[in-house]
């Protein structure tokens, strides 16, 4: 008896376990586990519904136990079911046989598509397995096997557990189990035979029936009828007529010219090998009775074509090589490389760089002079190549990883403005296959923190990906990056805006690299405005490449009076007259003369200028609509102001860190405000310059209108007048605003210190770019690559319309957006995303492969086509799919044809003349007699034959209870197995 099964007794009764053997301890441990899992007694569930083994949920519980120092795992496998209420349980008759014994006879779940082997063999909904814990451990010797089996017997007897208990014996791969199930007065023994070679008499039904009957050893005559279920499985491996169409794209052909650089923006897609490797057809006779059919060693009635049930499953190639997945995964690998660009390309590169840059600028200045040879307006990238060629001369040809054609194509793709007149249109070049702006797809960059799909950054990511895969791997990447950085410097030095970037301050929703490029563009833009001011005469129109959507959110929020400064900016800097010597120090602006001219006209309209405070107004932008100066009623002018400095997220981060470090004390807060007041001071100075003699009240009314409070008061004469004053907080003595106002001198923006030092910022960006290792670059751009890959997968899915894939893509997007928003996403999570993308690619490739095989496109009848498409999509999503109409249905006929043609090819492989189309063959088959003969040879020998034999007979004596008996057999090429469950009466024998 088990020690812990006993209730504590009142009397002190000492039980001595000190001498208990290992065996006893093992048994009591197993009993303990069964108790813990509450597997004691009979718990009858509902009768098993059809297909529940597949549609239901299986769970398992595990524990570890040891026999001496040998470790076993004990696992309870069970189908999750609603528990039957307790009262019902109490009413159960004492002699009800255990659930598992009843299940042996249930025919609703024969041949489940996916199940534990014991479920498949015995039809069990619940069982416990004891198996060696380590994968390569095994219970081999017969005596040990017997010992285990008798332990099982004892445990079941002791506990009253009615769940079958199995032990796994021999090597694990043999899947050998023996087991037992006990109920009140009844027992079922689970036995098994496993052979490598099949004895001849077991290859057919009649032989198996013989062995079943002899095992039962039924004393009755005649024997009750045996019910039979049979399934033959046929495997199709040769998809002879279909060659897998996908070829890796030939890149040299792309570069060759006619397709053009556009192809660089496209990602490859699809599996390189057939992702569907096998088709398994299972033909099933679910319910036969002995004597109805004949199946012996000379003849068989079992014609697969006639089988009442057909079901199909496909076997998918494990991890088929997929282009898109490979592409992204290879790119991701760069993230782990440690080498710097220098180390990859060789030391000499950087030393050369300086000189070569000089060469480029020189070459360009030649180009801007009237040239005798007609050249396209500008060819930046060609210039770069010239430089590159020179570098190569120094270094030796073989060291340049990218050949000129490839590099040229890429640079033209990245910088379309370099070829021709397009330069002046700025960013107008867009791929025609890009999603329209404002669409959900286009705004994906927002979620991925990548870059818009028509941006330079995004294109660069795709090019690097391509280079990495096809052209020189890491070296190619380093080389292209180096060229890219050169081009950036070239553009900065020569005032060419970088194409493919939205204008305005860096977009913080994009990746840092994109922000850096935008920052550089801001610098170029300011420098260009300044330099253009030098070169062009005042009457010249300034070409401004801004598309006008600068600072979207900012302009939405900006008040009317400030909003316009952006637009006006284009006009700024028309003349050079007032340019001071220290040009780097000052923000530049309208010339005095011109402005005065303008002002004069305006003032004369109003009836002549009034002189105030002896100061000439300077740096006026325009007159404020309504306001006039408080002290003299002059119109209030909005000044030209300096634009605040554009910032990238790393700069902002730095800044906020500095600000936070100042702490929360009053001094800290004061210092913080002071540090941020540069812009306020500058605006005050501009305002003072534009409005000579003004007061803080004037400034506040324009700048922070809510801080000027106006009230209607009745004066001494009884008139209602508007009286205004500064808000309380503005009136606090020596608050920052007052302080700043007092310090501010009337200086127009153009003569103020620059708030934004474009030269310094540009150099900082260029340096940042230059020191990026390929690994850094890959990390910067990975979000763009993932973004592109998701768009690609989406696009391909659209063609196939697979609903499950749609769902997965949605999950990938939300998952990625979570992962990519973290500053340094973990590699593991990134890998997971890439893996998910690859899986989706494989699913789509499988769908295509199946559609091709089943010829859904060739199907003419609309209804049939729909059915077939549904069938194909089920094949992808379900482990096994029923063929409606079995061999006579539409899908069934196609499958038949597939087998026939595969058979023909095997049969006639020796014959010179191969058979033509199988369709004619099928038509010829007239009578069913003829057909049967034919169809037998239409299929290869079954790769698997499964049989289930069942009956209910009394054992061991004729007067014993009639109990369920079952035998399952499976025969495959290299394997033969008999799994029998034989029940007997333990009370009456």
């Amino acid at each position, binding site marked *: 008896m088990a020690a812990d099964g006993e209730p504590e007794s009142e009397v002190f009764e000492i039980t001595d376990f000190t001498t208990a053997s290992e065996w006893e301890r093992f048994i009591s441990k197993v009993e303990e586990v069964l108790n813990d899992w509450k597997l004691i007694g009979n718990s009858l569930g509902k009768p098993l519904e059809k297909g529940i083994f597949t549609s239901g949920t299986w769970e398992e519980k595990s524990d570890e136990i040891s026999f001496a120092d040998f470790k076993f795992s004990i696992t309870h496998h069970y189908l999750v079911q609603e528990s039957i209420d307790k009262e019902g349980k109490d009413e159960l008759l004492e002699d009800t046989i255990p659930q598992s014994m009843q299940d042996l006879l249930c025919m609703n779940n024969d041949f489940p598509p996916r199940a534990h082997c014991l479920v498949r063999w015995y039809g069990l909904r619940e069982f416990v397995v004891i198996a060696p814990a380590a994968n390569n451990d095994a219970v081999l010797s017969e005596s040990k096997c017997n010992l285990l089996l008798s332990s099982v017997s004892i445990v079941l007897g002791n506990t009253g557990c009615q769940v079958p208990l199995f032990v796994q014996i021999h090597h694990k791969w043999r899947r050998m189990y023996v087991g037992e199930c006990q109920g009140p007065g009844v027992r079922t023994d689970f036995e098994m035979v496993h052979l490598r070679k099949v004895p001849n008499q077991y290859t057919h039904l009649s032989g198996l029936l013989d062995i079943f009957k002899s095992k039962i050893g039924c004393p009755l005559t005649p024997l009750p009828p045996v019910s039979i279920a049979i399934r033959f499985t046929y495997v199709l491996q040769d998809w002879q007529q279909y060659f897998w169409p996908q070829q890796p794209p030939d890149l040299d052909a792309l570069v060759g010219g006619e397709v053009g650089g556009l192809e660089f923006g496209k990602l490859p897609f699809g599996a390189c090998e057939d992702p569907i490797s096998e088709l398994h057809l299972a033909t099933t006779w679910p319910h036969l009775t002995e004597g109805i059919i004949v199946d012996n060693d000379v003849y068989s009635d079992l014609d697969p074509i006639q089988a009442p049930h057909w079901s199909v499953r496909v076997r998918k190639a494990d991890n088929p090589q997929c282009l898109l997945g490979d592409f992204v995964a290879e790119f991701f690998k760069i993230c782990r490389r440690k080498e710097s660009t220098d180390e990859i390309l060789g030391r000499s590169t950087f030393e050369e760089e300086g000189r070569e840059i000089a060469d480029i600028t020189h070459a360009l200045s030649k180009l801007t002079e009237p040239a005798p040879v007609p050249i396209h307006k500008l060819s930046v990238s060609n210039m770069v190549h010239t430089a590159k060629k020179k570098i190569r001369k120094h270094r030796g040809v073989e060291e340049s990883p990218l050949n000129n054609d490839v590099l040229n194509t890429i640079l033209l793709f990245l910088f379309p403005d370099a070829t021709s007149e397009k330069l002046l249109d700025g960013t107008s070049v867009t791929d025609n296959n890009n999603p329209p702006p404002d669409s959900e797809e286009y705004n994906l960059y927002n979620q991925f923190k990548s870059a818009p799909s028509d941006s330079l950054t995004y294109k660069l990511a795709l090019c690097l990906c391509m280079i990495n895969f096809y052209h020189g791997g890491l070296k190619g990447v380093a080389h292209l990056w180096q060229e890219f950085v050169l081009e950036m410097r070239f553009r900065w030095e020569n005032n060419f805006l970088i194409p493919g970037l939205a204008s305005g301050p860096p977009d913080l929703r994009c990746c840092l690299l994109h922000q850096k490029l935008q920052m550089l563009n801001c610098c170029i833009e300011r420098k260009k405005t300044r330099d253009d001011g030098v070169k062009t005469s005042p009457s010249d129109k300034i070409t401004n490449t801004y598309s006008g959507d600068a600072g979207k959110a900012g302009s939405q929020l900006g008040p009317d009076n400030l909003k316009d400064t952006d637009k006006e900016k284009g006009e700024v800097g028309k003349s050079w007259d007032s340019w001071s010597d220290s040009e780097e120090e000052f923000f530049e602006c309208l010339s005095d003369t011109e402005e005065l001219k303008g002002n004069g006209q305006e003032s004369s309209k109003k009836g002549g200028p009034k002189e105030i405070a002896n100061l000439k107004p300077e740096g006026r932008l325009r007159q404020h609509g309504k306001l006039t100066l408080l002290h003299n009623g002059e119109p209030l002018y909005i000044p030209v102001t300096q634009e605040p400095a554009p910032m990238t997220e790393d700069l902002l981060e730095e800044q906020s860190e500095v600000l936070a470090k100042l702490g929360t004390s009053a001094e800290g807060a004061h210092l913080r405000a002071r540090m941020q007041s540069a812009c306020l001071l500058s605006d005050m100075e501009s305002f003072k310059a534009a409005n000579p003699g003004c007061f803080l009240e004037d400034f506040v009314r324009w700048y922070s209108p809510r801080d000027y409070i106006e009230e209607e008061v009745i004066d001494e004469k009884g008139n209602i007048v508007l009286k205004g004053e500064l808000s309380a907080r503005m009136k606090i003595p020596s608050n920052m605003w007052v302080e700043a106002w007092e310090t501010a001198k009337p200086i127009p923006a153009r003569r103020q210190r620059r708030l934004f030092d474009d030269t310094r910022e540009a150099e900082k960006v260029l340096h940042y770019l230059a020191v990026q290792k390929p690994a850094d670059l890959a990390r910067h751009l990975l979000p763009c690559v993932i973004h592109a890959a998701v768009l690609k997968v989406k696009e391909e899915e659209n063609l196939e319309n697979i609903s499950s894939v749609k769902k997965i893509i949605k999950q990938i997007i939300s998952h990625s957006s979570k992962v990519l*928003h973290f500053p340094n996403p973990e590699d593991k999570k990134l890998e997971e995303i890439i893996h998910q993308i690859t899986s989706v690619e494989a699913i789509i490739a499988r769908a295509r492969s199946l559609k091709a095989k089943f010829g859904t496109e060739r199907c003419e009848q609309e209804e049939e086509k729909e059915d077939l498409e549904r069938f194909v999509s089920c094949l992808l999503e379900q482990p096994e799919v029923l063929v409606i109409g079995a061999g006579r249905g539409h899908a069934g006929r196609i499958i038949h044809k597939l087998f026939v043609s595969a058979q023909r090819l095997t049969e006639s492989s020796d014959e010179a003349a191969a058979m033509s189309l199988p369709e004619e063959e099928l038509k010829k088959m007239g009578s069913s007699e003829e057909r049967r003969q034919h169809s037998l040879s239409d299929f290869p020998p079954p790769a698997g034959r499964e049989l289930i034999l069942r009956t209910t007979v009394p054992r061991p004596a004729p007067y014993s209870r009639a109990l369920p008996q079952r035998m399952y057999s499976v025969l*495959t090429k290299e394997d033969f197995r008999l799994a029998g469950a034989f029940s007997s009466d333990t009370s009456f024998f």
Partner: protein
Amino acid sequence: MDEDVLTTLKILIIGESGVGKSSLLLRFTDDTFDPELAATIGVDFKVKTISVDGNKAKLAIWDTAGQERFRTLTPSYYRGAQGVILVYDVTRRDTFVKLDNWLNELETYCTRNDIVNMLVGNKIDKENREVDRNEGLKFARKHSMLFIEASAKTCDGVQCAFEELVEKIIQTPGLWESENQNKGVKLSHRDEAHGGGACGGYCSVL
């Protein structure tokens, strides 16, 4: 020192100039009301540790200037914030009307989509109310925000506002852990055990 602090949360206060953002913050951190508080220039910053449901959280609160001209700076402070307090002045309808703009900006610059937003109608101690409580409530519901009316002057609702916000943030999974344990997508079923492999698991006949 901060060993028992569960997490540091970044919180942002935004809204039109003069609605009382700095005053609310001062009331929360120092429990005072200072009528002599200057208009904020750029951003200001305060820290306070509070305890919600027994969890201690350190709050790093960024108080932004509502003044238009400083706004070009503020979007950067939206980055990484877990909570946002959007304030309007119940005695000035125009500050309520502008809320849409603020939400727009939030949407544009927030780096995460599960950020917790709270709407605060301030200055309820004043007589000349222009925005009804129901209007604020409706707005908050429409944009799925927390809502409370408060007064930095009389202290009404201030503590409660910050506590509610923090509680909500802590309840939002993945928002405050630096490492969110999302499991990712399960794509394939258990792979079939093929060939002669051990059958610990599930398999088909072939």
